[in-house]
């Protein structure tokens, strides 16, 4: 496969190779801090202080386990997750999994446009202008194929979330408190706490992230002897994304929670950056959230359309004409249109919607996890790269934990505990 035309110095070659493999892990991890992510962490930090940090640590491990399995399946089989699910489990289970994926991804896409609305209204521009504009921009860029260049700009905008890290050091939180809360779990038996916990899980370990990761690895044709690099990419990406998530919570806890502000709007959330940027905090917040929203809004509808068409064998891909891949384009455009219409409902509580979409994501996650675990243990699919038993133990514990939290939510709501 490798053409030996150019002889690069081995060190440089290694670096180039690393850069070519690097990517999906970093992108999915950056997307942890997309609009619903920032909203969720801001709400969590402002309502519960540092008490959510241990959950961040927990989901970091969870994300590594899940994304590594997806990447490994992509490398071994060269196929997408939807492909494997369909071939292994048949039509019924595939249809069920796809419905779950559609619901979860539609909610998350909607949340991205809610992020556009929230961040631009912070600058005083009504969402009735910015949201349709953002939809046109995303649709145009992706369909025209000029998305690749724009992706880098958007990733750059996402770096604005680094300002949370800087701010945290400016406000000098009680690092002892931070460390204690990171390592010692706190559980509060109220539905709001559980909903927020689910949202934190659901915005980090996402159904679409699994599909995206596996598809990227499969597309790149990563071989098993190159796989350790992909695994490193997954781990570095997850660690990086979650460190930033942790700092969003630390910053909001040290600023807003301390003075009793409970975040429900972008206005309030942006104040967390005031110690760093003062009056310009809102601009900084807007840049970060807008960049993340547009990035995810470009990837999500596309990833969903790919997965569904893959499951049912329909023609897909942006290099196809509309007549050749009608369902692919219908899903893609349908996602954008529905999201825009919902976000434009007057008086929609944007932050609340963003967080709840991620709680929903987490509730749907176990369905997918069970299928992924079964697949990655199937030796006919994975040969000698099937899960080791310790990987299974961790994956199953994760699945059971998420299911239990979901169950706890329903039990508590049923009992009427506020």
């Amino acid at each position, binding site marked *: 496969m490798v053409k030996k035309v150019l002889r690069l110095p081995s060190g440089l070659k290694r670096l180039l190779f690393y850069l070519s493999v690097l990517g999906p892990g970093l992108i999915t991890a950056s997307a942890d801090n997309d609009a619903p992510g920032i909203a969720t962490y801001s709400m969590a930090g402002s309502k519960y202080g540092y008490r959510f940090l241990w959950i961040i640590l927990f989901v970091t491990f969870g994300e590594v386990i899940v994304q590594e399995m997806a990447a490994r399946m992509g490398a071994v089989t060269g196929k997408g997750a939807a*492909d494997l699910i*369909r*071939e292994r489990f*048949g*039509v*019924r289970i595939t*249809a069920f999994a796809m419905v779950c994926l559609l619901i979860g991804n539609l909610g998350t896409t909607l949340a991205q446009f809610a992020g556009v609305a929230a961040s631009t209204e912070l600058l005083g521009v009504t969402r009735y202008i910015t949201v349709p504009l953002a939809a046109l921009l995303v649709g145009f860029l992706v369909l025209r194929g000029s998305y690749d260049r724009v992706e880098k700009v958007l990733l750059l905008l996402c770096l604005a979330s680094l300002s949370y890290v800087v701010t945290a050091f400016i406000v000098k939180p009680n690092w002892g408190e931070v460390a204690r809360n990171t390592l010692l779990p706190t559980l509060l038996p109220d539905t709001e706490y559980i909903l927020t916990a689910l949202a934190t899980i659901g915005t980090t370990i996402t159904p679409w992230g699994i599909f995206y990761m596996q598809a990227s690895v499969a597309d790149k044709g990563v071989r098993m002897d190159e796989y350790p690099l992909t695994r490193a990419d997954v781990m570095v990406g997850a660690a990086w994304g979650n460190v930033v998530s942790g700092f969003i919570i630390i910053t909001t806890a040290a600023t807003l929670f301390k003075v009793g502000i409970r975040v429900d709007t972008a206005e309030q959330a942006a104040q967390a950056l005031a110690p760093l940027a003062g009056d310009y905090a809102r601009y900084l917040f807007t840049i970060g959230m807008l960049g993340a929203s547009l990035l995810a809004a470009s990837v999500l509808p596309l990833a969903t359309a790919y997965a569904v068409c893959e499951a*049912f*064998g*329909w*023609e*897909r891909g942006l290099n196809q004409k509309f007549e*050749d891949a009608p369902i692919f384009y219908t899903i893609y455009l349908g996602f954008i249109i529905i999201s825009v219409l919902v976000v434009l409902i007057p008086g929609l509580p944007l932050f609340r919607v963003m967080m709840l979409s991620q709680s929903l994501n987490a509730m749907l996650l176990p369905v997918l996890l069970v299928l992924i675990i079964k697949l990655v243990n199937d030796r006919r699919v994975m040969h000698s790269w099937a899960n080791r038993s310790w990987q299974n133990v961790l994956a199953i514990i994760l699945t059971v934990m998420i299911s239990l939290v979901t169950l706890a939510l329903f039990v508590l709501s049923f009992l009427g505990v506020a």
Partner: protein
Amino acid sequence: MLYVSQIQGRQAWDAWSQPVGYCVDILVSSLEEPFPPIAALVVRTPEGQQDFIPASEISFLYPAIVLTVPLEQHVAYQPTGDELWLVDRILDRQIVDTDGRRVVRVNDLQLARVGTRYCLTGVDVGTLGLLRRLGIERLGRGIGKLLGKPVKTRVIPWEDVAPLQDEPLRLKVSRDRIVQLPPADIAAILSSLDQHTSEALLQSLSNAELADALEESPSDVQIAILTQMEPERAADVLEEMGPDEAADVLADLPDETSAQLLELMEDDDAAEVRSLLAYPEDSAGGIMTTEFAHAPIGLTAQELLDYLRHSEDAQEDEAMYYVYLVDADHRLRGVISLRDLVMAPPDVDLSPWITSDPVSVFPLTKQEDVAYLMAKYDLLAMPVVEPETEELLGIVTVDDALDAVLPTAWKKRLPRFF
């Protein structure tokens, strides 16, 4: 039409209705044939073992899988390694055309009984196949009808699929030139295949097998197939059919065609069919058969049984519930049920067991009236006599009489065997 999804996962029963196990896969062999036959069923036995049931032991597959032998006599099929595992290797796989364009996944596989064996006839790639796998075929059809857009079946003939490469499955034709099989039984498949393919299939059927298939088919299909065949072959097939069925078919054909076919038929058979053609289709004469057991009156049980064994008409009698007794002028003089005939002592006068003045109808008696009389007198067959001469012309069997009384929709709901 029979589909793999209707067989997969079903319980198989042996000849004594003992459970054999659940069908998990289907093996086809002789892949060089356009429609390769099923070689064996793979079943999972109650003990969790894998067992192979050879095609020769399969009595029928639908509505239940039933074997021709008791379990003790079952001899497991020995896979040669050249078989194609339909569920494992074909179902749910991606299909691409000659240009590598994705067509769709294998939603289901169509099987048909060709002669005495089951063959793989087509690949269902349509929405209806998906709905069937989901178990909501009927619901989907209903909704399609409501919307004025009936859900179409899309079946690609197996001939056009080349399962030689591992995957994806490759079609032998470009996507735009796919021949599609409409839904129907084996006879209908014949009528809809292109000339070359159906000729191949026709060659593999004997006249008797084809006659059986035609008798079970709706008249439009009968016509389509007979007109497609060489007239000589068509005449041979008509001879194999019951005279009543043959007359029905000929009545539906254009006059010139039916006259030509009658010319080509053997004189005896043609004469019988001609006499039936003279009567209206909904009269006793139109539905009666002239092949039935009759014998001279006055014989003992032993003599009568010997006579029947050598009588050509008796050989042709499909059911033989009764033996009709006639005098030298072929006038109906009595009837004896086969049961009484068998139970009677061999050498005594049969008079006590003979009903001497049996209920009979005229050729022009309405079909409904025949059915009514049969119900009233609890008869399984009704003799038809000439009004003036009292000559016995034929009999109407209960199934033919019932056709008139059963509403069409109801008939369709009865399980269909191939």
